[in-house]
């Protein structure tokens, strides 16, 4: 098999767009006010796109309706935090439990090897963080494998409620005070490296080159790229076959058990990484953040972007975060047009408007922003015949899901 697959025009353009956005972020970050909300949006948007894409892999491409994403993010976030908190501040963080029970920090481990000074210190920090992020993914994937054993046999809404249940159980376990030595019980973990630690500083601690918004984009970008490769591989085709019709897929020789478990583990692996990134974004980790409401939020992002579209999930995450954190902020404060006081505007109105918009999308634009097309499909449009009902594949998918009823 030496045949090399040539990149089509659409994919090439998509890659160029992604690279351009990355460079723009890097430039903006180093030129304009670093406290701008724009950067909060970029960081949180990057984290959420990764989690949304990982959820889409499961819900949109494998047809497994899982609502456990927050649980796997929790695992990832805790693994990351526990592995990277510097050893010397552990006891102050775990003071309620008379000091930490777990005293290993990947960052310190590398600092002991390479030294903690300037460049060496930075390199050790980066290595420690990367190892911890990967560990976060692996822990989430292992749990996913174990949870998947009993749960993946269930169908549609039962699967949804069972995974939701597992996420709640995980949350309870992490808040259990008997594990306080490791998880700090219901209290927050903090002090680990965050995105702002990636800003390059000179000897006096002054920031010379900002990377804090570019790094999350790069990490999330790499992970999403891997997911896209997976979706386009033979495994990805098997996942789609399972989504479209389980019985036919099984008849074609696809092992349901193996592929469902694989998809569940991979999705959770990236959700775990997403959780680690979320921890870096939020700079504290607390189990009570990872509620079912968080899963719903991510699920709504997937729906807005289009179930079965990776680029849709990414676009929707940034739009969602930008609207909720930035563009709609004005709705929360009293506004005047001339001397006219606009009624209804006060704290919380933003989220009401926002949820009404979401309801409108859910009810009237069921296929979301992208349906199940990708950005590259838009540029390759000439090749595919697209009628008003969407692509052929799209129609087929809809017919099959209609039959399922």
């Amino acid at each position: 098999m030496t045949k090399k697959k040539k990149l089509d025009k659409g994919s090439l353009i998509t890659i160029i767009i992604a690279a351009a956005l990355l460079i723009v972020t890097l430039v903006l970050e180093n030129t304009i006010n670093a406290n701008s909300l724009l950067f909060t949006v970029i960081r949180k948007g990057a984290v959420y796109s990764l989690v949304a894409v990982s959820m889409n892999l499961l819900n949109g491409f494998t047809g497994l309706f899982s609502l456990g994403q927050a649980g796997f993010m929790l695992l990832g976030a805790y693994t990351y935090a526990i592995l990277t908190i510097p050893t010397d501040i552990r006891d102050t963080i775990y003071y309620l439990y008379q000091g930490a029970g777990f005293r290993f920090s990947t960052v310190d481990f590398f600092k002991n090897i390479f030294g903690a000074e300037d460049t060496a210190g930075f390199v050790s920090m980066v290595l420690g963080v990367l190892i911890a992020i990967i560990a976060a993914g692996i822990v989430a994937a292992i749990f996913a494998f174990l949870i998947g054993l009993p749960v993946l046999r269930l169908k549609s809404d039962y699967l949804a409620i069972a995974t939701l249940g597992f996420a709640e159980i995980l949350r309870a376990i992490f808040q259990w005070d008997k594990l306080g030595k490791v998880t700090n019980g219901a209290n927050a973990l903090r002090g680990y490296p965050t995105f702002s630690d990636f800003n390059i500083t000179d000897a006096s601690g002054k920031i010379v080159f900002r990377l804090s918004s570019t790094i999350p984009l790069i990490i999330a970008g790499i992970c999403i790229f891997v997911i896209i490769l997976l979706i386009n591989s033979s495994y990805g085709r098997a996942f789609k076959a399972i989504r479209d019709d389980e019985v036919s897929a099984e008849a074609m020789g696809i092992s349901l058990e193996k592929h469902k478990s694989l998809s569940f583990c991979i999705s959770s692996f990236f959700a775990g990484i997403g959780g680690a990134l979320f921890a870096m974004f939020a700079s504290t980790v607390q189990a009570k953040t990872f509620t079912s409401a968080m899963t719903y939020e991510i699920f709504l992002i997937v729906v807005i972007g289009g179930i079965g579209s990776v680029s849709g999930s990414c676009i929707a995450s940034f739009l969602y975060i930008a609207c909720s954190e930035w563009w709609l902020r004005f709705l929360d404060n009293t506004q005047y047009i001339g001397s006219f006081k606009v009624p209804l505007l006060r704290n919380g109105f933003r989220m009401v408007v926002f949820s009404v918009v979401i309801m409108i999308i859910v009810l009237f634009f069921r296929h979301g922003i992208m349906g199940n097309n990708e950005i590259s499909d838009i540029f390759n449009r000439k090749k595919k015949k697209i009628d008003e009902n969407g692509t052929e594949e799209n129609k087929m998918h809809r017919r099959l899901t209609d039959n399922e009823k």
Partner: protein
Amino acid sequence: MEFVVSQILSGVSLGGQYALIAIGYTMVYGILRLINFAHGDLFMIAGIILVYASASLPLFISIPLMILLTVLLGFVIERAAYKPLRSAPRMSVMISAIGVSYLLQNLALYITGGQPKTYPRIPWISETITILGATTHIVTVVTPFLVIALVFALTMLINHTKIGIAMRAVAKDFETSRLMGVKINSVISVTFIIGSFLAAVGSVLYFTNYPTVIPMSGAMPGLKAFVAAVFGGIGSIPGAVIGAFIIGICETLIKGTDYSVFSDAFTFALLIVILVVKPTGIFGEKTTDKV
């Protein structure tokens, strides 16, 4: 002894409150095959409506008003968010339910301004009483009887009235009952009205035991009531009631031990066990997949 009695009493009471919510879930699931995620939030909204209504009206007016408004809201939710998706895939309806739940929570957050609202003290049922040496509120004793009475009335309605027959027909086969001239939409509306009514009654009993209502108050009881419905066999009313009592009692007993942090987790563990061992629940009918 006193401790055990009071634990069991409050467990039974909690179970009764879950049962009232669970019936709403199980009836809607029986007919639409939809997990109505918004049901728990409707329950919370009922609590908040009473907080505001009782601030300006006496209780004997505000409670019926609250029930009326909750029922109306349940009806509107069905008409606005679920009816347009009648011919859509099942997943779309569930997404819509999640959307409604999100909307109701944000709406409650906006109205209350994020402040916990003090639940009005309802005379008589908030008073304390002593049974076998255990001190408890009258509501704890009243709840199980009220639940049994309501379930009895509901069973009569389903078994002996025209609308009840229609409901059973729709639950059995959606398409065929439509061909037989059953007005699907009105049957579904009645289902939501009954569900909302029971949730409204349940909210009075539930929130009396708690000092305040917050926008997230409905999420957990809602999920637990759903678990109760699944446990008892979704679609079956007696199943939902028995499931709810079991979950309520177990939860209260666990809350009394050192493992109180796991009281919520236990419910979900129970759910997973029952789904794996007997996915149709205790009283559920066995279904076969048609290929």
